[in-house]
């Protein structure tokens, strides 16, 4: 019996008048990798951004319905608590350009005004970077600016930055779409390892990626959650016609 970490019920999201996420019901189990896929503009990224309340930062964006994290309603918590528990990695790597690699990793602590003793800080940095499989590459240049790294390294730095805060859930919004194939595979390998400690929700428009990395897959189409099932089942024997069409490449 696996425990549910995130549950949404009749969840809707809007941009002004535009209804972009329609009545989504989903239960996400702990310590799994969940892939969210669908054609562009299907609302998958918006749904992801609703989970840690990044959606409401866009002017005119609203949402309603139930979004629960560990039996607690996300929308009755303060957004800061939500974002501390649910980390996020963005489509394009966005390390803070004014900070060094070291400072980027502990940026979350700094921003949150948590002062760690030097020893502990070093430990957090090393641990997070090793978990993000970046430690070996950057351990000699920790005090260089993060923007000197390659795209794949920058993205892993962003992952390290997110997991340094010890979140329960990590949201990844097309984390490899701006990366080359080699960097992509290093980030994908990383996802497998992170599964033991975190619950990962990854948005992707790349079906192969969804099939490779995830335990479960959710398929969004025109704002609706069409199908949500074990990845293997979904790719071999989809229930819905639209899913069938999508995974066989009949529309994109």
């Amino acid at each position: 019996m696996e425990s549910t970490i995130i549950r949404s019920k009749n969840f809707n999201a809007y941009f002004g008048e535009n209804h972009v996420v329609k009545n989504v019901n989903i239960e996400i189990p702990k310590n799994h990798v969940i892939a969210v896929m669908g054609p562009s503009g299907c609302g998958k990224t918006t749904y992801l951004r609703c989970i840690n309340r990044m959606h409401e930062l866009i002017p005119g964006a609203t949402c309603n319905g139930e979004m629960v994290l560990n039996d607690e309603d996300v929308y009755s918590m303060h957004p800061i608590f939500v974002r501390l528990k649910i980390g996020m990695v963005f489509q394009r790597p966005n390390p803070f350009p004014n900070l060094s690699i070291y400072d980027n990793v502990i940026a979350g602590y700094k921003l949150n005004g948590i002062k760690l003793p030097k020893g502990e800080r070093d430990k957090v940095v090393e641990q997070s970077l090793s978990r993000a499989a970046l430690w070996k590459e950057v351990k000699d240049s920790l005090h260089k600016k993060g923007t000197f790294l390659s795209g794949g390294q920058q993205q892993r730095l962003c992952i390290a930055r997110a997991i340094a805060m010890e979140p329960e859930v990590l949201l990844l919004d097309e984390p490899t779409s701006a990366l080359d194939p080699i960097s992509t595979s290093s980030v994908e390998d990383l996802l497998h390892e992170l599964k033991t400690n975190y619950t990962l929700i990854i948005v992707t428009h790349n079906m192969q990626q969804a099939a490779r990395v995830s335990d479960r897959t959710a398929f969004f189409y025109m704002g609706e959650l069409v199908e949500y099932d074990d990845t293997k089942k979904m790719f071999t024997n989809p229930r819905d016609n639209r899913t069938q069409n999508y995974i066989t490449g009949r529309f994109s």
Partner: protein
Amino acid sequence: MSNLVKYRIAKSSALKIFTIFLAFVCVVPLIFILLYIIRAGITKINWHFLVNIPKPVGESGGGIANALLGSMIIIGVAALIAIPVGILGGIYLNENKKSRLAYWSRLCVDILQGVPSIVIGIVAYFWLVKPLGGFSALSGSVALAIMMLPIIIRSTEETLKLLPDSLKEAAFALGMPFHRVILKVIVPCGISGILSGVILSVARIAGETAPLLFTAFGNPYISTNITKPMQSLPLLIYNYATSPYNDWLDLAWGASLILLLWVLLLNIITKLTTRRWKVQL
């Protein structure tokens, strides 16, 4: 942990309120100044005020006709000099983005924009007043024209930069010579942007006093001869505002209100033309 977060949230909203407060405090002095000048000036303005020249000390009444006419002539001549040169300068900078002369030229336009107006007044004095043997409205116009140039050049360049290259290519493809492409196609397409730059430049210099101190110099009578000293609105305000006579102070308040309305009107026109232009794009 929870207390820390509560503190941070409270700090964030407190600082937000503080920022909003500071931002809106800026508006207060402006509103004070505007209201004060309207109150002090409105009672002084009537038909008599607009068509008469100032009376000598001790006699009440009098108007600012010489300054109004003088301002119009000085600004008009300045615009006549600055508009063609400024627009051509803007075209030059837009057409030659890479050349070395254009680099220096652009730098000099930037420098010109920052030169204190009093310095331009001094220079105009040595360029025109001294060689011509006396203060003249023309030298004042030249000083103001130098101040208008950077604004017109920059706004022309920025406007032309926004026009798509395809427009120029289409015109060249029809075999039009360069000057026709520029003057008949490019400039007409950007005309409202260029125009708003011109109006803005007039608005900026309409209230300039410092460059006129040693050039147009001022004149208590009506004069239309641009080779002789001429009164202008800002000069009149400066001279009468610093005088100890109440009649003259009253005159200066009336003149301030007129100058203020004139400058605000020009700014509003600029705003409207810019908005129109943006919608068009």
